[in-house]
């Protein structure tokens, strides 16, 4: 199964489970969790089921396209279901079967792994899912997001697409993966991997980035004062990405690091609180709609 078929298969499968399928969010981010479709929508009482592919940038993980397993940008397939369904594990295992992975012929285990994203004020309990010893998925029941208790609880399933593909296609090097017949992962991403790594480690202008961080931060603050949650959150994401670039450049000392992370976390918490308040003001539209549908 090629990379593209895998993404289509998962989209199709989760669409069948009543998830809305959305497209990747257009602001740089380190993980699918940071997409507002997850970060904001898992807050509050409204039901929410969504699935999407998220290209995720982690500047410090770039290896100039030379390392067979490490990437500046990788792909996550993200599923959120709130409230978490009772048969969520079975659904997940069913999705693996769709990818051609019959559990009876493999060793699949749920190994404890508790997830925490300090910059998002978020944490949850769950597992990493092992396929014959390889971690292929993060499976998390969110307990808090943006410092707010989750009730009902959303479950997050994050497939590591490159890892899964390297197993399914039996490839040692991520760049040898087949995207579609005749086109490899390397054909699509090798050059950007090299260039982004070079930029992040050698070329980026730290002074400009520091300035951007402050600019984005104050814009996030200003926007939040107008209760404009989504635009404010975009600037939080930008802060986070700029911070990651500075970190990769080695421009942030260990002591400063904690300070910058706290600044991002404070913004994220404020956005989360404002989001909840705004949804409440709108009388939680999706809650009402869910009740009408069940009536």
């Amino acid at each position, binding site marked *: 199964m090629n990379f593209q078929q895998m993404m289509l298969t998962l989209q199709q499968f989760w669409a069948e489970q009543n998830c809305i399928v959305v497209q990747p969010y257009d602001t740089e981010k380190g993980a699918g969790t940071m997409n507002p479709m997850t970060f904001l929508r898992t807050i509050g009482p409204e039901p929410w089921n969504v699935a999407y592919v998220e290209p995720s940038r982690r500047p410090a993980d770039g290896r100039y396209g030379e390392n067979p397993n490490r990437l500046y940008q990788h792909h996550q397939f993200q599923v959120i279901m709130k409230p978490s369904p009772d048969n969520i594990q079975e659904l997940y295992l069913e999705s693996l079967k769709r990818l051609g992975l019959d559990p009876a012929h493999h*060793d699949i285990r749920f190994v404890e792994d508790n997830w925490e994203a300090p910059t998002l004020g978020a944490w949850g309990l769950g597992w990493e899912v092992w396929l014959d010893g390889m971690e292929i998925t993060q499976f998390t029941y969110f307990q808090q997001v943006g410092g707010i208790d989750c009730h009902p609880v959303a479950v997050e399933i994050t497939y590591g697409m490159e890892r899964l593909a390297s197993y399914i296609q039996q490839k040692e090097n991520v760049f040898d993966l087949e995207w579609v017949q005749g086109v490899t992962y390397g054909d699509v991403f090798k050059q950007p991997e090299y260039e982004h790594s070079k930029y992040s480690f050698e070329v980026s202008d730290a002074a400009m980035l520091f300035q951007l961080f402050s600019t984005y931060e104050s814009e996030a603050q200003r926007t939040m004062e107008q209760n404009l949650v989504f635009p404010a959150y975009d600037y939080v994401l930008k802060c986070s990405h700029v911070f990651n670039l500075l970190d990769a450049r080695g421009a942030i000392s260990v002591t400063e690091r904690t300070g910058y992370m706290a600044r991002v976390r404070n913004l994220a918490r404020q956005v989360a609180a404002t989001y909840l308040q705004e949804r409440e003001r709108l009388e939680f539209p999706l809650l009402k709609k869910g009740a009408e549908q069940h009536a």
Partner: protein
Amino acid sequence: MPKDLLLEIGLEEVPARFVRGAMEQLKEKTEKWLADTRLGYKEVKAYATPRRLAVLVAGLAEKQEDINEEVKGPARKIALDETGGWSKAALGFARSQGADPDSLFFRELGGVEYVYAKKSSIGAETSSLLPDALPALITSMTFPKNMRWGSYDLRFVRPIRWLVALYGSDIVPFEITGVATGNVSRGHRFLGEDTVVEQPSVYVDRLRAQHVIADIEERRKAIMEGIRSLSEERGWNIAVKDDLLEEVLFLVETPTVLTGSFDPSFLHIPQEVLITSMREHQRYFPVLDAEGRLQPHFVTVRNGDRLSLDVVAKGNEKVLRARLSDAKFFYEEDKKLKIEDASAKLENIVYHEELGTVADKVRRIRAISDRITQHLRADEEVRTAVSRTADICKFDLVSQMVYEFPELQGIMGEDYARKAGERESVARGINEHYSPRNAGDRPAQSLVGAIVGIADKIDTIAGCFSIGIIPTGSQDPYALRRQAAGIVSTLLAHDMELTLTDLFKIVLEVHAERGLKREAFDITKEMQEFFALRIKNVLAELDVRYDVIDAVLAAGSEDVRRTVLRAKALQDVTAEGRKAEFRPAVEAFNRVANLAAKADSRQVDPGLFADAAETRLYEAWQQAHGKFVKQYNEVRMEDALAALSALSEPVAAFFEAVMVMAEDEAVRRNRLALLGLIADDVKTFADFSKLAG
């Protein structure tokens, strides 16, 4: 007729490290409920896998025991009113016991007549108690980490997905988080199916048929048997670490042992790196040859049967290959690292906001280490090796390998230092200064590693104490207790002539240079108390009796080595069999110590002796004192104690012959001073009044 009870809680995969505790908790809670509820039973057994916690009560009585007891009430004179009828007090008592006032009666107890009520109740049917008791039992369970799921409020270790509750063949009806009880359990996630458990006694067999081994001992045996037959077949020595086996035991419901290999070219990476990578990341058991050398194979346990075992092995090999390639990359990169450059980078790593960078810490370790070698009058070779080791003891913290595997700190340092041409004693010292690494670990074997290790640990402890980080209760984020215990065991292992007082003085001098915010006197006092508790634990671990520990610690514990040996000597002479022989000495010492408290000087004038017994005791003390001091200094504690014990006869004779509190003040003070001299020696050894009779 008694029947069996089965309760199975079906869960999403419980973290391996919590399963055993949860199983034991379920068993204890069940037993406690049975006892509190007065329900008879034959036996309680507990089962656990990653997906289920179960308890089976064999032979559970059908009803509670009836109660027939007599309860004592108020005394007769209060129980009757003026007219001879029941008073308010008596009527209230009857009401509180649910007894008819007419059934009250009197009985005498200790010469007083009291009113009594007969209390009896018919035991309730077990089947009527279970529907409330079982859910309460489940929801009262606690775990180290809890979660909520779906729209439910219950906090539990992981979501509950099914419940089996059977009393005999009847389902005990209740519901938790939308899950209703039934008699259907679930089999292995991939190999088994749902299975009806008709009655509790068939539970284990029904599950076994569905590829679940519910009994943890049976599962452990299956794993060990798989490992044993593999070792036999291949001639391997498979290194099974208990904590890893325990984890694996709770990751699988049907264990199948399998093996895979890796490219032998990885074997040039230090063995510890490969083993750590396999154990920590992959939960593999490493394979060794007879000489303990790592072989290019691994052993793992699959949660399943033998179907497509080759696919599973190949998959695991692929993962390990990626892991080891990473390790190899780090190792090659780290080789380019120069020790001096690496040490310089420590200037940028904050150790603690108030205690400076790691480089600052290293400078303090160096200063403390040098002062210790001076104090010990160590020879030139040790002195230079200690200085160098201290200077570079943390350089590997900036290596990629230690960043990836923090537990390899020191181990990588040793390897890299040796390759960089450092002396053997220095390379080894870098590794050993972290010893003992955990509770069961041994202290540093080399003197160099021991000295630098003590310096590092005492720097951490004094640093933390100086800024108010002092362990309380379960709060000990910097593992200061373990570090203090490490210092104690290292001092003992090397028979080091270094008292805690000396060590505290050295470390606080060094810390004074960075400026102490608190008084050195206060910090010292807190460290003394802190270490006294550690020494107490060390003595308890050496099986020293508690009264002996108290007696010895009352005489101080600043000299760790002599404290432990004093305890051992005292334990020996007070052991059963020798106790009687030693008792006169204890009595003599205690009498001396009591009176000596009144002594205000140590000036003894033999000219004031009025009795031969006084002269005899004085001479005996002079002799004993010389021996005692010499033997104490030479750390011959049994002999030192024997020297003191030799005084017991002359002391007894002295008390027989003279009146210490004589009328004449000069004579009295002279006698007290003599006792004071003896007491000073005795108190150096122990406070004998703390010994149990």
